[in-house]
């Protein structure tokens, strides 16, 4: 096997969708020695209003050789060798005959996540059977959460009207089934894919918009999809590994979830008291302290450690109803700790993450990270960029920011978390 994987990162900052598509593809391909056999594409939501995503993909296909497998989607932002961005598009192109690629897709990921997962897994499973390579990796891209528009109030993260909160609680399951608005259910989907492909290493990320939670898109070859899951199976003899880290630390504030909604997504009571009131009391915050204005500076720094099938799931609380807390993933009742996170801890989490790969000489890397990290660090995300650049040097890497991410390996099992860095690095044994 050649000692260099031919991989390259492309980027565009153009506004016009078609021109941007052309530029991101051209920029990546020109650095490769031969045409790519795989193309991962991430874009911010802005092209929706500047020509549309069909035109964006048309631009890519003006340049990309026909039948190159392409997957991707919209993200809140991205980081690559050139910097950190919340507008534009980036691509990771790979041209290597020592990697077999298989792509599966499933529709209605919010309505029937398990069915969508199984459909993806079947394609990947059949592909892997045909491949002679030993090491198997699966990248899962899932349509992320989309918030429900509340009648008369629009898109809100804190609903303080009791009537509207009851309406949202009641309409929640129905909205997810009928119009596919609500949590991405990527956690359920991930569990199912892992069940189907337990011997592979995997990374999970969701597609998102610019933190507004209104809509998001997935890219599969020349198609722009919604509410879909895309799984990419890579079989190879190259060395690779996956790792999740987060900077969250446990505080001594603990509570018990005593009542959950039937679908496990809404915490209705903690310590047998209305959930939001009790949460604020535990944090020594006055009632009403968590509101649209204070949210970004307060509660995002206090995630909670939920439990799911005995696993710890550190999660942020993205939406509050008058008395309840909406969680981004399914949780179980029982003991919960409040966590805390700081910018310093987030940067340390990246260092810890990269140190896990000390036995791999990197050739390229792909990261899925929580967009709340981007929201909380702001321009200080460049400290993270510096750390990663120091590690990769000239080798290509792309990090995309999403809302629900994780990794799986047969050794470390599922790690699904919010506010986390998830890494896949391909390379050689040191």
């Amino acid at each position, binding site marked *: 096997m050649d000692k260099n994987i031919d991989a390259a990162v492309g980027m565009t*900052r153009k*506004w016009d969708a078609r021109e941007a598509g052309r530029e991101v593809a051209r920029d990546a391909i020109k650095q490769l020695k031969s045409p790519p056999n795989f193309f991962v594409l991430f874009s911010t939501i*802005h092209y929706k209003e500047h020509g549309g995503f069909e035109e964006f993909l048309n631009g890519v296909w003006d340049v990309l050789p026909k039948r190159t497998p392409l997957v991707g989607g919209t993200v*809140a*932002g991205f980081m690559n060798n050139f*910097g*950190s*961005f*919340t*507008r534009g598009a980036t691509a990771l192109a790979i041209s290597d005959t020592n990697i077999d690629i298989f792509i599966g897709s499933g529709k209605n990921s919010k309505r029937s996540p398990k069915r969508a997962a199984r459909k993806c897994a079947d394609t990947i499973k059949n592909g892997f059977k045909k491949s002679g390579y030993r090491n198997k990796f699966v990248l899962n891209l899932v349509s992320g959460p989309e918030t429900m528009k509340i009648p008369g109030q629009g898109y809100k993260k804190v609903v303080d009207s009791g009537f509207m909160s009851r309406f949202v609680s009641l309409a929640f399951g129905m909205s997810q089934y009928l119009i596919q608005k609500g949590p991405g259910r990527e956690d359920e989907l991930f569990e199912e894919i892992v069940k189907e492909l337990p011997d592979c290493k995997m990374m999970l990320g969701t597609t998102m918009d*610019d*933190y*507004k939670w209104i809509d998001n898109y997935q890219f599969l070859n020349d198609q722009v999809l919604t509410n879909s899951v895309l799984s990419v199976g890579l079989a190879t003899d190259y060395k690779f590994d996956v790792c999740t880290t987060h900077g969250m630390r446990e505080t001594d504030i603990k509570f018990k979830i005593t009542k959950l909604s039937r679908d496990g997504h809404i915490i209705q009571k903690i310590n047998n008291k209305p959930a939001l009131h009790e949460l604020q009391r535990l944090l020594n915050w006055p009632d009403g302290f968590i509101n*649209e*204005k204070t949210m*970004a500076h307060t509660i995002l720094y206090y995630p909670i450690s939920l439990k799911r099938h005995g696993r710890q799931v550190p999660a942020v609380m993205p939406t509050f109803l008058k008395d309840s807390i909406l969680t981004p993933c399914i949780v179980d009742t029982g003991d919960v700790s409040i966590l805390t996170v700081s910018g310093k801890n987030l940067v340390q989490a990246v260092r810890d993450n990269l140190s896990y790969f000390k036995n791999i000489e990197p050739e390229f890397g792909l990261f899925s990270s929580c967009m709340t990290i*981007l*929201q*909380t*660090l*702001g*321009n200080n*995300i*460049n400290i993270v960029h510096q750390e990663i650049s120091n590690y990769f040097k000239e080798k290509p890497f792309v990090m995309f920011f999403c809302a629900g991410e994780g990794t799986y390996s047969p050794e470390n099992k599922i790690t699904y978390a919010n506010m986390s860095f998830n890494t896949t690095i391909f390379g050689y044994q040191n």
Partner: protein
Amino acid sequence: MEYKISGDVDRMKDDPIAKVLDDLLKLDDILACMVARQNMISVMPSDGTDGFNPEVNQVWDIIHRAMDDVFNVIHEYSQTGLAEMEFSLQDYEVLFYVFHETDNALVAIIPALSNKGLIEVEMENARREIQDILNEQEQIRLAVV
């Protein structure tokens, strides 16, 4: 108190810094942006104030008075590492990204409750681009001297 605009607005259309501001202004949540220092707007986007979101006009007087006070602080501390400042006023927030060891800053007015973290990433990118342009212009000036 009147904010002066340095130079001819028509000439700004060809200014590479104005192009960076144009890009920034296209973001939904950037209502207005400029490169400014105390009492002086140095560079505006290509369309001048016409490119600003009209809702800024209603609060412009009070915002630019407050900006002037912030520039006092920037003048005082930019040499000692002051890099960013911001204030909230009514329904708006004003972000100042100071150019290294100068009295000048990239200024943006955004709505309160916007996704500031994401905006900050692009503010930083714009500051770096403008800083590069300024450095290049300085190199040319020194070469001429």
